[in-house]
């Protein structure tokens, strides 16, 4: 019913358009379709090859779009055959990706929320300085500090150390804080003031009054940051190379594989399996992300 209504209204809108607008929109529709094909086809190609048997897959036949074998067992074989460093399996890399992603999300979003909350809702000595730092770190391009940063992490014992790496990730002045700050400014103080009158302390106000109000934004940022962190190979390569994540594992597997027939189909299956969590999360939460994660103007 809803779709029928939408179609009718779209048709009515279309009828009211001028000829120029009809040509304009049709050209864009063609552009969108071509762009969608260019974006999507590579994945169809990889999926098609990921369900071929190693025997069916070879360089002469892998140009065909459709497979005849449907070897979904390749996806199960990933767990036993996708191995790097000789003994690190897909399961281990999956676990590394999970703990690295969730630890990052927890400490980063917590720090961002606390900094944004303090800056948006309280007046205190140093507030202007902290706000300035938040803006400064966003808009001043500093190139090539990777060496100094690595040296510091090395000296602090943070390289390949899951027990300390969380502190490196606890950046409360990044893009997430910037977005949360804007949202906190828009939340009325009256809720916190009423809770205060009812006897709630600051922690209770933050946890029970403020946090539920920005939960949709936190979920949206978590999904957004999940996708970035899940696919981040650089951190694993530089800081946690003894705990390779899936993204880094894919890079190493591709680098070190001698590309036997079986290796290639397993690689394709692993590529798609690694991409799946991010795609599913995005499909489920896309409206929430678009509504909540926005970039406004920078003042200051």
């Amino acid at each position, binding site marked *: 019913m809803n779709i029928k209504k939408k179609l009718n209204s779209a048709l009515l809108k279309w009828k009211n358009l001028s000829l120029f*607008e009809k040509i*304009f*929109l049709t050209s*864009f*529709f063609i552009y969108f379709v071509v*762009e*969608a094909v*260019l*974006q999507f086809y*590579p994945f169809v*190609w*990889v999926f098609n*090859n990921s369900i071929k048997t190693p025997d069916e897959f070879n*360089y002469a036949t*892998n*140009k065909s779009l459709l497979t005849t074998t449907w070897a979904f067992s390749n996806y199960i074989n990933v767990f036993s055959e996708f191995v790097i460093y000789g003994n690190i399996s897909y399961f281990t890399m999956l676990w590394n990706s999970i703990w690295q992603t969730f630890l990052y999300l927890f400490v980063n979003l917590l720090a961002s929320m*606390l*900094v944004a909350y*303090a800056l948006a809702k*309280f007046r*205190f000595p140093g507030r202007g300085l*902290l706000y300035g730092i938040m803006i400064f*770190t966003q*808009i001043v*391009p500093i*190139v*090539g*500090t*990777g*060496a*100094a940063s*690595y*040296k*510091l992490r090395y000296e602090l014992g943070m*390289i390949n150390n899951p027990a300390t790496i969380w502190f490196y990730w606890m*950046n*409360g*002045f990044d893009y997430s804080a910037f977005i949360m700050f804007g949202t906190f400014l828009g939340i009325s103080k009256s809720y916190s003031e009423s809770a205060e009158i009812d006897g709630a302390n*600051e*922690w209770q106000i933050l946890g029970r009054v403020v946090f539920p109000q920005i939960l949709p934004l936190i979920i949206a940022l978590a999904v957004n940051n999940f996708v*970035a962190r*899940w*696919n981040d*190979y650089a951190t694993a*390569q*530089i800081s946690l190379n003894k705990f390779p994540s899936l993204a*880094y594992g*894919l890079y190493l597997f*591709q680098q070190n594989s001698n590309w036997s027939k079986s290796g290639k189909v397993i*690689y394709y299956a692993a*590529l798609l399996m690694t*991409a799946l969590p991010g*795609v599913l999360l995005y499909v489920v939460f*896309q409206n929430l992300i678009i*509504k909540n*994660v*926005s970039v*406004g*103007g*920078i003042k200051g």
Partner: protein
Amino acid sequence: MEVKGDKMKVTYKERKGWHYSKLEKSKFPFVYLIVALPVIQIALFFFYVNLSSFALSFTNSVGEWSLESYKKVINAFVSGEDHLGFSLHELIGKSMIIWVVNHVIGFSISILTSFILTKHMIGSKIFRIIYHIPGIVGGVVFIGVMKEMFSSSGVVVSMLESLGVDLPINIRKYGLLGYEQTAFWCVMAEQLIRSMAGGNMIMAGAYMRIPNEIFESAQLEGCGIVREAFQIAMPCIWPTISTMLIFALCSFFTADCGMYLYSDGTGKFGMTSVGYYLYRFNVALTIASSGDHIYGYVSAFGLFMTLLTLPVVFIGRKLLAKFQENVEF
């Protein structure tokens, strides 16, 4: 505030906004407690790191105080080649091409296309999901997939062959990424497609927040789609556009564009950029005893690039601020 007769004297603290009520003061411990760890983190990993980078830039390959690193950087810029054999002119030129492809062409197109997609296109949700796939699946997966497309057995080479294009032997053997004349431009083609689609996510969100009533009343007054886009929608989301442009200016020399992944970490066949160059050094540092001598050079190079980028960013910000209008809806 002190009152003397009928005159009110505003203290210096009040003028500066440094006067706090008792209630505000009672909340200081809580506020400082919640920001303490993030402040220590930023002090260490931003301010200390930057100061340390500055200090390191004045050291030589054995860590002694010296201007050797800066001499190397300046020589590299003058001669066009650094002491490690990299062509800096090529790296900077390619970074500029990457920036133009991503931000001037790709982002500009996405400003218009995301408006059409959000406000006037049927099936926009499906298009949106498809366009975001490269961003969602991430660099390693997407580049892994694209490398297969450009390989000797991939779709692109097959299509060119079936169109009767006479391909050099190296392309037929190693694919388009294995040939000097095509490798970098294949990456750029992929980047263009990706950036045109990628800008949609943020732009779509900004356009969706403009109330439909604004467009409906414009339509009632006979406003067409093109005027709607350029005279209503784009001015409404100008703060978002200008902020994205500032972020884009900041990434002038840091964008790697997957060159490291495309070239398997080697920068071969011209797949390089300043971002790739710097990342490559970071990787070298992780390999024990192979990277210690480059701390000074990398830091000096980074500082030099920062000095080149800073004026561009500040002039860009000033110019963008001139066109800034506060739009409320």
